[in-house]
């Protein structure tokens, strides 16, 4: 279906897109420009219009809480992405083996995704609390040495948060992968079968490559979650114990509204923006030249 070249331009159509144009110009581009500008000023409680060069950035990277937040985000991001993708992929493949109760299993694996990250964080906070939660329960059942106290340990708190987030999000990967698996041509399975290729090889060599687009979509959706991660931390650990589970989004919100450090917060936002743009630019570039295979969001 090749659309005709002729365009139906119309005043009403242009008018109708004004809210969208205003959103892009003011709410997106304008706010970004403002934040970048403020990051070069000495703003504290109120935005100032002076120019202090990179001083806020120097301050930012001398702030332990920020560098720790970045480290935590990296740890959280890696664990979250890998665990969600692996668990989701395995669940999808296993469900695809004509199991009984497929619909029920799918429902069970995906329901956490309907829950908010706040509720997720609160439930896991309760289950992981060492005094009355899983640890106490299993010790009470006779496993005296059982220890599961991540949530109160400096070195493990961020993994406790990741565990909760993985519980919430891996169903998403399962759903996307399963849709991908169901989209694969049946005759491929027949051919592999006739050629005597074992099932695991068929998955590894024939099926997996075809799941590329599903995989890319899952990756993009999960990556967006990683960058935005805030609610689950606030609900579960409030960034603690100490600074053990602080994340950049929380650093920024706290400095904007709690500590009146607008310049510093803007510098931190700009760092995050630059990081996201660094990943986004290749994708935008690819979109300008279509017909380069189908990635996530390629329309």
């Amino acid at each position, binding site marked *: 279906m090749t659309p005709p070249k002729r365009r139906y331009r119309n005043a009403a159509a242009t008018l*109708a*897109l004004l809210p969208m144009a205003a959103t892009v110009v003011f709410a997106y581009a304008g706010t970004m420009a403002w934040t970048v500008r403020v990051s070069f000023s000495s703003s504290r409680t109120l935005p100032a219009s002076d120019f202090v060069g990179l001083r806020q950035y120097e301050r930012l990277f001398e702030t332990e809480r920020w560098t720790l937040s970045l480290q935590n985000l990296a740890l959280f991001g890696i664990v979250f992405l890998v665990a969600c993708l692996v668990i989701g992929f395995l669940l999808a493949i*296993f469900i695809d083996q004509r199991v009984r109760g497929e619909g029920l299993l799918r429902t*069970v694996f995906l329901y956490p995704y*309907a829950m908010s990250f706040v509720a997720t964080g*609160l439930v896991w*906070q309760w289950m992981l609390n060492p005094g009355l939660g899983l640890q106490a329960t299993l010790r009470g059942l006779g496993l005296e040495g059982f220890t599961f106290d991540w949530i109160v340990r400096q070195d493990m708190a961020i993994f406790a948060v990741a565990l909760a987030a993985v519980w919430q999000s891996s*169903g998403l990967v399962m759903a996307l992968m399963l849709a991908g698996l169901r989209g694969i041509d049946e005759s491929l399975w027949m051919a592999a079968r006739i050629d005597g290729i074992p099932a695991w090889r068929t998955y590894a060599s024939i099926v997996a490559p075809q799941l590329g687009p599903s995989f890319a979509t899952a990756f993009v959706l999960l990556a967006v979650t990683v960058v935005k991660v805030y609610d689950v931390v606030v609900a579960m650990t409030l960034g603690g114990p100490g600074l053990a589970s602080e994340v950049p989004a929380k650093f920024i919100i706290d400095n904007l509204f709690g500590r009146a450090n607008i310049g510093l917060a803007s510098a931190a936002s700009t760092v995050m923006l630059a990081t996201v743009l660094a990943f986004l630019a290749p994708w935008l570039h690819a979109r300008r030249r279509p017909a380069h*295979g189908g990635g996530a969001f390629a*329309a």
Partner: protein
Amino acid sequence: MSAVFGHANEPPTAARTRPAGRRLPRPARIGLYAFLLTAAAFFLLPLYVMVVTSVKPMEEIRAGNLFAWPVHVTLAPWVQAWLSACTGLQCEGIRGGFWNSVAIVVPSTVASIALGALNGYALSFWRPRHGEALFLCLLAGAFIPYQVMIFPLVRALSMLGLFGTLPGIVLIHTLFGMPVMTLLFRNYYAAVPRELFMAARIDGGGFWRIFVQLMLPMSLPIVVVALIMQVTNIWNDFVLGLVFAGRENLPMTVQLNNIINTTTGERLYDVNMAATLLTSLVPLAVYFVSGRWFVRGIAAGAVKG
């Protein structure tokens, strides 16, 4: 060009049959079910714990068995969570947050879907100059972290007198929902035969008439998908409500967090879990009722080129 939404009319029960050859041998099948059941237990455990904790008196909770079925089932924690759980000095339960969330979700959902449909329609059929470039910028905006935009938006809304008001938070949800809603409808309309639009043009239909009388009635499947997505997302939002809604309009998620994380004195785990369940009730109901339609919303961005 096959959009995911091309499938939107497919009967939601079509489970495809596999060639018989793919049945695994017996021991492997046992392992398979063992894995799936273990996973199911892991996914269900928090829900079970929430439910059990929320109907247990505090004395039983203090005994320290998370999984134990309550000896005395009580609904008192639910009543307390709804009517009288405390945030600081205020003890009015979570019901205020529930109604605030309803007041935020309904107009935000309607506005964002209406705008998304309009944008998608204008982009797909009328192709205004620079429309695609604009759309690309809008999509890119979906990836920009909130934090970059939050403070300037707070200032802009303050200047407009909308900061901390219901219209303010509705506007914010509409702005942030626009990329995905536009994408959803644009792709849906891309799969509509252009000849249909042409015929309507020849019959003298103008921009709004074709939209309202021809395209909107055809859009029911995608409107349902959009509805599921927006109700769930906006209900589950935390940070936007926290920043923009103002003290009077705090959504349920924010009040839930306040009740649980800012209490002084003894922590009432039974009330906490009842409040958490109450807050999750709406999105969970949407999920269980909508079934496969929910999955279509998830795959919204996933469109093969």
